[in-house]
């Protein structure tokens, strides 16, 4: 039975990739509670519409797509500034001591609009191919390519700005 196979496969993929799905959700909301909610809600959505999976090999990007959409929904509903909890602050502080330059990049990344940030996260952190990102975002590959290029350009600009502000403050 085709449906049975799909559902079993889906459950297996979800179980196997749960950490990745959680991390992606967390990268949007920056707190554990919401990230867990997003994962839960996404699995619900996935199970209900598993019959929409056309190509078994694209289950992963399909799952990422659901996570991204659910996360955006949550952010839209909250419409609040990202508030970091103690854990995150601690985490960032630790990062500050260990890898100073990366924090600048992290800040720059946080400063990007979601449209660009998603692409950077999927491309560099989740190691998705451009084709897969195109599937997740339902855009064509050249749009994704352009947007990624633009995102990197923005990051560079932001980091240069930050660097200059810092030098200016020091003087």
């Amino acid at each position, binding site marked *: *039975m085709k*449906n*049975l196979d799909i*559902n079993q496969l889906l*459950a297996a993929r*979800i*179980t196997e990739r*749960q*950490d990745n799905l*959680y*991390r992606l959700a*967390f*990268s949007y909301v920056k707190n*554990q509670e919401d990230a*867990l909610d997003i*994962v*839960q809600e996404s*699995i*619900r959505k996935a*199970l*209900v*519409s598993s*019959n929409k999976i056309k190509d078994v090999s694209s289950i992963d990007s399909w799952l990422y797509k659901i996570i991204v959409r659910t996360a955006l929904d949550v952010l839209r509903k909250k419409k609040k500034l990202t508030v970091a909890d103690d*854990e995150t602050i601690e*985490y960032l502080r630790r*990062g500050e001591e260990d*890898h100073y*330059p*990366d924090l600048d*990049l*992290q800040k720059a*990344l946080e400063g990007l609009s979601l449209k660009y940030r998603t692409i*950077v*996260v999927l491309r*560099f*952190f989740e190691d998705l191919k451009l084709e897969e990102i195109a599937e997740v975002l339902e855009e064509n590959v050249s749009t994704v390519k352009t947007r990624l290029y633009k995102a*990197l350009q923005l*990051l*560079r600009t932001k980091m240069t700005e930050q660097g200059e502000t810092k030098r200016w403050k020091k003087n």
Partner: protein
Amino acid sequence: MEKELMNLRDEYLQTPIPKELKDVVQAALNEKPKKKPRLGRNILMSAAAALLIMTASVNVSPAAAKAMSEIPYMEKVIKVITFVEWKEEDNNSSAVIRTPAILGLENEQLENSLNDKYLSESKQLYKEFTDSMSKLKEGEKGDLSVESGYSILTDNETILSVQRYTERISASSSTESQFDTVDKKNEVLLTLNSLFKDDRYLQVISNNIKEQMKQQMAANPDTIYWVGNDDVSAFKSIDEKQSFYINKDGKLVIAFDSFEVSPGYMGEVEFIIPTNVISGLLVGDQYIH
């Protein structure tokens, strides 16, 4: 820049994974989809609820019991009241087992056999639970919960159908139900075989269920049944021990446990068999019409 991104990636990959994630994922995978409330079911539920309230007040207050027994017809009605209730809570686990007792049947033997059956089974269930509890106490960690109870599906002049359910929750949850239907007038417990002339009904009902499954799946893409010819685990046929009850419209209802014919998220499923499909095979139209 690319190198810095790679460093940032390492940090991203170190996003702390909460230990709850596993449970959340498993729970979501095993979840039943939200069912749209159905009017018929609601009426049935409120009828059952009313009966439970009555039962409760009879049990709690002797005065209420006396008052009710003075209402005309009341003593003639077969009453299902909560007979025994066990409760045990320990650490993370809990068990609530309600044993229905059917009173008012004149045929002592049937009444006894029904009650004994409920009782021994509920005791068995409780024993299973205490066994697994002692295992848990020996050091194994886990959250386990058993809830068991019953609902009255049909209670009219001739027929009483009772559903007993057992829900086990331990990481994932599963529900099993057992159905009993008794003829109150003749005081017999109905079996599928006793309703039909011969075993042709097995195939006829199975075919009807398969048709219904296919129709439902075509109408709603979220509905999935394991039906087909090519699959080993697909639904093929009911047997004479298949769970069933007779609903208040006098229709035969075939019931399946969760996971029996469909993915877990579909929950327990039921099929109402149109009477005209089986009317030629029935012994009589007293129960099913």
